[in-house]
């Protein structure tokens, strides 16, 4: 029996869904930002600052930051459970996997807080 307490929702189905919903949001943000940069070749500070001081853009960015946190957790978790296994690392696997997941989770949390500070911290 598979018992797992470290995945995001304790349900593979919900994780699967969270990965896809967050992926669509991340894709939308990526395409929007790439499109904006492509359409504004000689971008000035005023235009760039204007874009991100727009409240709609702040909400879109924050939503993307949440999606990024979810998506990276599910992704890094999947990688850790696939490769940091007892088959590859023996008895140390559980500790190794836990440490890896803890570092990924902590790093993503710090990046999330930093992202919020960036979005609301300028001007």
């Amino acid at each position: 029996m598979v018992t797992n307490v470290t995945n995001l929702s304790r349900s593979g189905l919900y994780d699967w869904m969270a990965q896809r919903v967050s992926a669509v949001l991340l894709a939308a943000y990526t395409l929007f930002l790439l499109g904006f940069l492509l359409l504004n070749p000689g971008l000035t500070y005023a235009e760039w600052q204007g874009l991100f001081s727009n409240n709609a853009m702040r909400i879109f960015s924050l939503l993307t930051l949440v999606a990024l946190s979810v998506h990276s957790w599910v992704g890094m978790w999947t990688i850790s459970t696939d490769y940091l296994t007892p088959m590859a690392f023996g008895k140390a696997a559980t500790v190794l996997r836990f440490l890896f997941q803890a570092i990924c989770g902590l790093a993503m949390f710090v990046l999330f807080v930093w992202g919020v500070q960036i979005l609301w911290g300028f001007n």
Partner: protein
Amino acid sequence: MSVNIAVNSKRPVNLDLRTIKLPVTAYTSIVHRISGVILFIAIAGLLWMLSTSLSSESGFEQVKACLQNPFAKLVLWGVLSALLYHLVAGIRHLVMDAGIGESLEGGRLGSKLVIVIAVVLIVLLGVWIW
């Protein structure tokens, strides 16, 4: 009975990826993962660019000047290439979730399409950056 013995016996098992000839679908899958890890590591750098470029006029110019550096261009190209590949391969996942291209042949074709589309986009990205 003989079947049971065969299943339970300790037959040699080879799960060493380095010695297995991988199909094209396996390559697109592992590159999707590798690009994901690259992007996870790159988040900090991208946030630094966003933070500095938004902080002030001089910060914005600093990021612009930084991106004139050939090495910085190469790194940016690498990170955005990972992003484009991850995006294209991810869209393929969503298409397959919708039930399209799930057969063996469909999977192979989808993988080849991902490679072709991603390479074209990455080349175009390089043209844009340089």
